[in-house]
């Protein structure tokens, strides 16, 4: 595991925590995309996205609604396979594995690249079963091993003390924030390398949103995280890199990609500058 280099930077007002913000972690490419494009039928949603995601870093994707952020994430774990008339072209690799190859084991890929959705979506089962079911399906069957991993995942998301006495009650009875943390635990329990998060805080109340944000920040270094967010302050607080998506001539494109401080302090593009200053988007 690589520890991110921490450098104190100007502190952005945050009601719930004070933290050191790292400017950047050590660059070590893990995921690379080259000219990645995606179309729904004949509507092109993203066009020629080329970027590099570094291991252990937290990369935020920002941009106006409809600029293809979700579509981009879905390419990376091949969730696009579920959509009947969706075509992807270009290249995407994780280490040396070709993500878009028709012959790779998609289930293993998705185990390696977990995903958290905007709306918390625990399964209609007990808390225990929510975590046990994916583990068992991925071949972890020894009871003590399952228990150990479940407990570790729940501790990692700070849920263990809240739920350890009611593991057998329905996950749907948890609060929204707790459900979202359970969903993160459900992804963590499979020990992925990468976590894709699609606006993980935006369906939560401010307090839970803060808790989940702190959690995501704490996972940095241990996991490679790509987070889509509409909250620019959040991106500024937690991200090492920021990519700005913008829809130009219908299709979403990556207009700028740089370390967080560069994006916020010296944006190269006028659109980026306008967007982060809240003028457009």
């Amino acid at each position, binding site marked *: 595991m690589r520890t991110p280099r921490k450098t104190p930077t100007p502190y952005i007002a945050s009601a719930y925590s004070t933290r050191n913000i790292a400017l950047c972690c050590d660059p070590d490419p893990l995921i690379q995309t080259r000219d990645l494009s995606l179309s729904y039928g004949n509507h092109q949603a993203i066009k020629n996205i080329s970027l590099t995601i570094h291991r252990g870093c937290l990369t935020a994707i920002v941009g106006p609604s409809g600029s293809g952020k979700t579509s981009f994430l879905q390419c990376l774990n091949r*969730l696009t396979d579920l959509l*009947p008339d969706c075509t992807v072209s270009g290249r995407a690799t994780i280490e040396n594995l070709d993500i878009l190859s028709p012959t790779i084991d998609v*289930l293993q890929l998705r185990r390696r690249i977990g995903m958290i959705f905007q709306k918390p979506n625990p399964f*209609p089962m007990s808390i225990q079963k929510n975590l046990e*079911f994916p583990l068992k*399906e991925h071949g972890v069957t020894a009871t003590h091993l399952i228990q150990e991993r479940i407990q570790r995942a729940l501790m990692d998301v700070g849920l263990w003390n809240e739920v350890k006495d009611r593991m057998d009650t*329905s996950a749907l009875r948890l609060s929204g924030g707790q459900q979202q943390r359970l969903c993160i635990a459900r992804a963590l329990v499979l020990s992925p390398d990468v976590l894709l998060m699609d606006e993980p805080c935006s369906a939560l109340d401010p307090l839970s949103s803060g808790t989940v944000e702190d959690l995501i920040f704490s996972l940095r270094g241990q996991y490679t995280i790509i987070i889509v967010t509409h909250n620019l302050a959040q991106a500024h607080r937690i991200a090492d890199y920021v990519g700005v998506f913008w829809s130009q001539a219908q299709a979403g494109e990556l207009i700028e990609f740089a370390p967080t401080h560069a994006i916020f302090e010296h944006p190269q593009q006028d659109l980026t500058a306008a967007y982060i200053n809240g003028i457009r988007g």
Partner: protein
Amino acid sequence: MDKHSLFTYDMLSTTIIWTVAGLLGCLFFWLLGDLMRQGIPHLSWEFISEPPANAGRSGGITSILVSTGLILLICMVVALPIGLGTAIFLSEYTAETHPLATFTGRSLDVLASVPSIVFGLFGNAFFCQLLGLGFSILSGGLTLACMVLPILVRTTEQGFRALPLEYRTSAAALGLSKRATLIHLLLPAAIPALVVGFILGLGRAIAETAALIFTSGYVSRMPTSLFDSGRTLSIHIYDLSMNVPGGDQAAYATALVLILCVLTLNSLAQWMAKHWTYTRRMNI
């Protein structure tokens, strides 16, 4: 309307709704009460444990209970897997707009509204004659299976379609196979719909007379194999009240037994649904 009259209006609609609901309840109890009043005097252990005698006027209904049970068993053993399979195929493996799905769906809807006597004629031509099964419990059960399949498939399919799409996407995002998602996630979540389909199908089957007269026949002897003809409870009631003078008492008693069977099956299915989805229900 001012506040006061709004209140009166509210009270009025509440009263009407309660009255209607109450009347419906009364209707059920009146029906049951009448059945019990006329049927109970004739009901006894012998009635359950003895074969019919004197064209059903005396004796009991053992052989008829056995035939009914066997026919329903065949019907459900055949219809459940086919119905569940078709429903899963329609909801999980074809888009709702796919021509095959639309075609199958339409056909099922038409079949669901076909009068049962038509199924009887079909069953007679196909199972009894073409397949050479004759008037038999097997023919009757298979005909009933054809008859309840549309209801079973449609309710189950709707149950699957009603499940949130997120179940499928979040399961896929965890690298779970389609098979595992279906078995461990979607199927348990759809069980209530399955049970409703099962009860509706069973209800239609157990009340059936027209389709069975042409296929399982109405021999009231104790069946010795599935190839024997057998008479079901509803055919027995029909025969006693239409063709047997002085058979009314026995008809009422048989009807009472039939109702009890339906109620038992109903509550059994409810209980099973609750039991299987225990962790879920317990907490919602």
